[in-house]
């Protein structure tokens, strides 16, 4: 997938003017958030249930290499073929070679975030194979060639008129309509034909289970189930952090995933594969390939501070509650993952140099951390990314910033210097003031003043006033301490 993380500000400014998306964002996230709270109440102790999820994910990450090997052993014993890919191009090449060997010209795909990371669809197209996303939202986003707006609703912001045009052009829809249900059924007809004839289906993996070698998928539409039932070949891609120790762990995560993701007790379908179909079965894949993709994660794993990002289960709860996502939507994040999830994942996977705005455009309000069922501490990661970025600046263009903070640190450790700098800076700022308020000021703070005033920095600081009041007190009461 094309990386567009450098255009965060530009895209966010544009998207904030998009009234359709804004109206939608004002509505949907709060509704899902409310549903989530309601359905979390089905746990006797919701917070303990979240804590268990966090513990499972922490353990999964801590024991990752052992769990991967155990998973592989059991999956292979069940007849699956397990392949490993270091990076995006290796992963894509593995899938392509499976497709080529079987002379496949069309594939259907269930939602797979790792395949969005690796740009699998582009790879297919470049090699003369037509990929069809089959999740309705992904299908629309793919046809429009747009990144996902939301991890659960990738095209949920797209106006129906646009979808109508698209389906008339690319999905064989004959009669124009703006009814979401009719549009959905048009996609059903189009994709049903694909499902019926497809010979190779691609899926992602929500959870992999070490003790059984099984992979678990969670969905509402049934498109993933079609991909696991109709074609002769199933290729399931998973990133290395998906493995948990036990089936019961997986079940608990599925419970948490559905509640946190869409506010459902469970999604319409959960499907679990352990190996390809049994010989006697009438449907299901004759061969099951599981591709374990690293794509930068083992490097992340080496960094003990960054490692926790691998706990994420992609539920999207953080998007629905993020006060910034709810203003700008998913596009500004510029890649496969958006919202706080993208703000922690994209910099880890793409590097901090290209993703600066993602970890800086945040007030550290901590709503994402609070709600996360996987135990990701987003604000802590943002601070860490900022640190990594600052280390780069010390050597490059932003050197003034590093110098400023160096000076700042020295002043903060020396009261006299601290006060001296204040006396130096105050008049420079205060001259923009009028009647106790600053209404405009050039320079880095300029943006503040577009809609806000600022008090003029005090001529007499709190310390000055304290001294005075204490001395008056001393006079009147004859001494204090």
């Amino acid at each position, binding site marked *: 997938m094309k990386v567009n993380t450098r255009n965060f500000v530009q895209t966010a400014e544009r998207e904030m003017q998009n009234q359709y998306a804004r109206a939608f964002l004002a509505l949907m996230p709060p509704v899902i958030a409310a549903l989530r709270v309601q359905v979390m109440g089905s746990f006797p102790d919701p917070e303990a249930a979240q804590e268990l999820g966090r513990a499972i994910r922490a353990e999964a990450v801590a024991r990752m290499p052992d769990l991967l090997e155990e998973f592989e052993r059991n999956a292979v014993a069940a007849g699956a073929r397990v392949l490993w890919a270091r990076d995006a191009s290796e992963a894509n090449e593995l899938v392509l070679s499976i497709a080529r060997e079987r002379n496949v010209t069309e594939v259907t795909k269930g939602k797979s975030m790792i395949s969005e990371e690796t740009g699998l669809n582009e790879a297919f197209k470049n090699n003369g194979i037509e990929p069809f996303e089959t999740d309705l939202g992904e299908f629309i986003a793919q046809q429009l060639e747009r990144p996902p707006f939301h991890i659960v609703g990738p095209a949920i912001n797209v106006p129906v008129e646009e979808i109508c045009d698209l389906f008339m052009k690319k999905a064989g829809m004959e009669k124009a309509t703006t009814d979401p249900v009719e549009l959905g059924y048009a996609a059903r007809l189009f994709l049903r034909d694909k499902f019926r004839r497809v010979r190779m289906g691609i899926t992602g993996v929500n959870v992999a289970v070490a003790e059984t070698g099984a992979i678990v998928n969670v969905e509402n539409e049934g498109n993933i189930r079609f991909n696991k039932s109709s074609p002769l070949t199933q290729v399931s891609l998973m990133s290395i952090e998906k493995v948990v120790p036990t089936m019961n762990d997986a079940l608990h995560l599925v419970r948490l995933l559905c509640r946190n993701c869409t506010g459902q007790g469970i999604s319409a379908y959960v499907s679990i594969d352990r190996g390809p179909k049994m010989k006697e079965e009438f449907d299901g894949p004759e061969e099951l390939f599981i591709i374990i993709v690293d794509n930068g994660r083992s490097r992340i794993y080496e960094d003990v501070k960054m490692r926790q990002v691998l706990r994420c289960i992609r539920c999207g709860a953080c998007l629905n509650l993020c006060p910034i996502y709810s203003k700008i939507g998913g596009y500004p994040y510029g890649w496969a993952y958006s919202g706080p999830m993208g703000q922690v994942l994209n910099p880890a996977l793409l590097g901090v140099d290209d993703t600066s705005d993602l970890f800086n455009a945040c007030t550290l309000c901590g709503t994402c951390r609070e709600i996360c069922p996987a135990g990701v501490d987003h604000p802590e990661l943002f601070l860490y990314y900022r640190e990594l970025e600052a280390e780069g600046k010390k050597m490059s263009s932003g050197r003034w910033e590093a110098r400023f903070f160096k000076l700042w640190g020295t002043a903060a450790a020396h009261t006299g210097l601290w006060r001296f700098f204040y006396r130096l800076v105050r008049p420079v700022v205060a001259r923009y003031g009028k009647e106790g308020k600053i209404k405009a000021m050039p320079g880095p703070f300029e943006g503040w003043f577009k809609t*806000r005033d600022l*008090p003029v920095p005090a001529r007499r600081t709190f310390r000055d006033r304290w001294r005075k009041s204490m001395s008056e007190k001393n006079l009147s009461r004859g001494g204090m301490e």
Partner: protein
Amino acid sequence: MGAVSLFIPCTVDFMMPEVGEAVVRLLRRLGVEPVYHEEQTCCGQPAMNAGYPAEARKAAKHFIETFGDDEVVVSPSGSCTAMVKYHYPELLRDEPSWHGRAEELSNRIYELSQYLVDVLGVEDVGASFDGTVTYHESCHILRRLGVSRQPKVLIKKVKGTTFIPMDQADACCGFGGEFSFRYAFISEEMVREKVDHYLKSGADLLIISEPGCLLNISGYLSRNNPDKKALHLAEFLAGVQEGGVK
């Protein structure tokens, strides 16, 4: 009653000294004589949040030197309190002697309302205000310190005051330090929504316990709704009785 040492955040010291004065007046009224170490500077948040933990560490050490022996440290800011409480031990993890002091200090620092209600055991500070009041739940106070009941209890016990909850009181106001000017176009939308909820609540006054949020929201009100006010909790509790809003 043991000594209470004040940590007055930079924003208060330089931009809103009246908030600090209110804290002093309030504590004195409750029979607590505060101590103020004039050597204090900054908790280190600006450097920490900008990605310069080494510089924040310098501020942290200075802070620990300044406050290290105090029995209780109180601050009218939840984000500064959280910085000391949660980030200092982490920042100084590799320096055992400092780390120990940071951990100790971590257990002795309180946000103002937390101190008043949980430590001092006071709910009615003896203030009065004739009108309706609502409260903004600042992010660090609410989510980092888990403090939400305390400020509201203090407000509700003020004579003549009716507390009105406001919609999305726990939503971020969009301050976030550098965020407020670097990403002003997002920040101003957030503060606009916050103020909308305040106005819709119909309350006469908005109370805030965090100086950063106060700068942001007051700054917006000053420009767009000059007849509406936001006050720091300390000002509300200390000042209203003595002649109202400054």
